């Protein structure tokens, strides 16, 4: 086992463990903290794959902004674990945990076995993962782009231009909905 593999397995362990923590911890604040840990672990996974840009964005957006708001709300409504109902018995929890662990490890090993076999198998595009050939529209020459941010930006603004722009509409709808549903007097909204 080389170092990347060791790192991969340890991060997998952290990821799966923290995901279980999110679901099964009785204190909501700690649950949210496990989610933070999960996102950081995910960022580490991205970095391990060589997608440093994705990793930083993951931390910046999810950990730095979204989860903070989550924690905010949870802290301000002060749900302590005593306030939560005894939702399932201990035996039930154990059964659920066992089944989930079994299912996930099964899936994990299946996928892993597949990846071991799949090394070098043909993919449709056959391109190297972090480089892409693009056209410079002002000069008309072809460039080979490497580097995370460049590849992602070319993917976003060239191939996936339409979905990228549509996402802005989705966000607009979400913002409108959030404002409309939380505003108290709707007649004044006009």
């Amino acid at each position: 086992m080389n170092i990347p593999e060791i790192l991969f397995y340890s991060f997998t362990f952290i990821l799966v463990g923290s995901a279980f923590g999110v679901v099964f911890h009785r204190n909501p604040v700690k649950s949210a903290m496990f989610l933070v840990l999960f996102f950081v672990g995910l960022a580490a996974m991205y970095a391990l794959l060589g997608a440093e840009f994705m990793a930083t964005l993951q931390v910046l957006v999810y950990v730095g902004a979204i989860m903070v708001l989550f924690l905010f709300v949870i802290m301000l409504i002060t749900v302590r674990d005593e306030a939560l109902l005894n939702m399932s018995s201990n035996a039930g929890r154990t059964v659920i945990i066992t089944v989930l662990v079994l299912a996930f490890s099964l899936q994990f090993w299946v996928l892993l076995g597949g990846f071991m076999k799949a090394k070098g198998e043909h993919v449709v595009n056959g391109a190297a993962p972090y480089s892409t050939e693009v056209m410079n529209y002002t000069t008309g020459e072809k460039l080979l782009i490497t580097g995370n941010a460049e590849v992602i930006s070319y993917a976003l603004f060239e191939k996936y231009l339409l979905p990228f722009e549509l996402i802005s509409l989705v966000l607009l709808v979400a913002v409108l909905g959030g404002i409309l549903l939380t505003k108290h007097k709707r007649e004044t909204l006009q």
Partner: protein
Amino acid sequence: MENIFKFQDLILSAPQMILISGALLILLLQVILPGFRKLLAFYITLISLFASLYFVTFGIPGTAFYGLLSGNPEGGTAFQGNLRLNGYIQHYSFLILLALTIILFFIKRVFAEQKLELAEVYQFLLYIGAGSIFTVSANDLMTMYIGLELSSLPFFILAAWDRGRATATEAAVKYFFLSTIGIAFMLLGIALVYGGSGSTMLSEVFPVVFAEDSFSYKLLAAGWFLIIGGFLVKIAVVPFHGWVADVYDGAPSVITAAMASIVKISAVGAVFRILQFMQPDMHMILNTGIIIFAVASMVYGNMAPLNQNNLKRVFAYSSIAHAGYIITMFMFFPESFKAISLRTEASSALYFYILTYALTTILAFATIAYLENGEERGLTFDHLKGLSKKNPFAAFLLSVSALSFAGIPPLAGFFGKLFLLKVLLSAGYYYLAVVMIVTSLVGVYFYIRIVFYAYWDFEDENATSGMLPPFRGIFAWSAAIVTAVLVLGLGFYSESIFNFARVASELIQ
């Protein structure tokens, strides 16, 4: 100098772009104009819907964008292959726009009466339309996913539109969580498909044939079934049906009408586009799954409302049954399916079925919206007593939709079922046809019960029916009459519509 962004792309996505610009126009005018009125928003919405309907029907002359009536088998792609335009997609776009226009008329009146009307409602309707058309016409799984998001997000908001009622909020939350989970699984499926093939573009991923024991094949298969599962949540067939009754019941009835019709139309259209490229040898697994789901849906959807007294819930459960009928046609979609003519038959039968189903559903839920008028906690059978005397028009509309759902011969619903049965029988799925007939016969009981309650002379009819308001509003009247006439009359033109859809189905590629 070449450009990433071509004017051609805008033309090929004209209907969506018109809807989106209409929505943004409403948003902007609200900010700019101080005396902005809801009526203006309504007319902007109406004009954008009619404009898109016009373009979808007649095309834009001199460009690659062609309409339903101007046959051009070539079609085209836009936005770097993210969008596809062909006859099949135009058919489904037309259906979405038609349903949306009818619903717009109903919403105008119902929400105005319930004091729920805001300019944002119209804006959301336009987003729903654009998102649904994007879902159907996407040629890339990412675009499909974003289109689906764009069309479902407004529904979550509109479901909670009547915030005073706890059930509306409950419906919105349930709908939000369950369909988000569905979409999340779909997204996982897209990721697996990308992992298996290295592309998300439909026309790139699916024509490539992998060896059955290769890892890519396994990833692709897993991803595929997850994607279809995500769509099945939207269509609401039995293992994924848990939310239907509560959501359909809790949401405002006109919104339920939109939910039950538009979401299903776009999901079915998109599933067809995915399934047609299925890997060979994969459709056996698919068929098994679909038969199980379909039978379960038919049985559950027709059994559950037998004991149900709430009118909206009756129609909600019956929509599960209809989803069961719908998905039987999915079996014939894969390209690898040997009988290509059968595929065309199935596609056109499904098109006709979903057309009649959407119209009937809209009619049913819109009528309920009028009758309940936002005041009551659900409309029960007791409320229908003496309806034919108090409000004969509403009684007539309700009966027409119920009878069409039941499949009584001269109505459109009968012909829809007939075509489905024909396809099933010619493919040799006799037992499925038998299940379909038997379960819909069971279903006739509660549909007839609606007609019975509406028209029978009850002794105590004054007890509860006094609060029913008369049917009002010129827009709603016209929409109701047009829909009712369509439901009544489409059956007589079924063959021509069927042939019309057949032409489109041959152009699916």
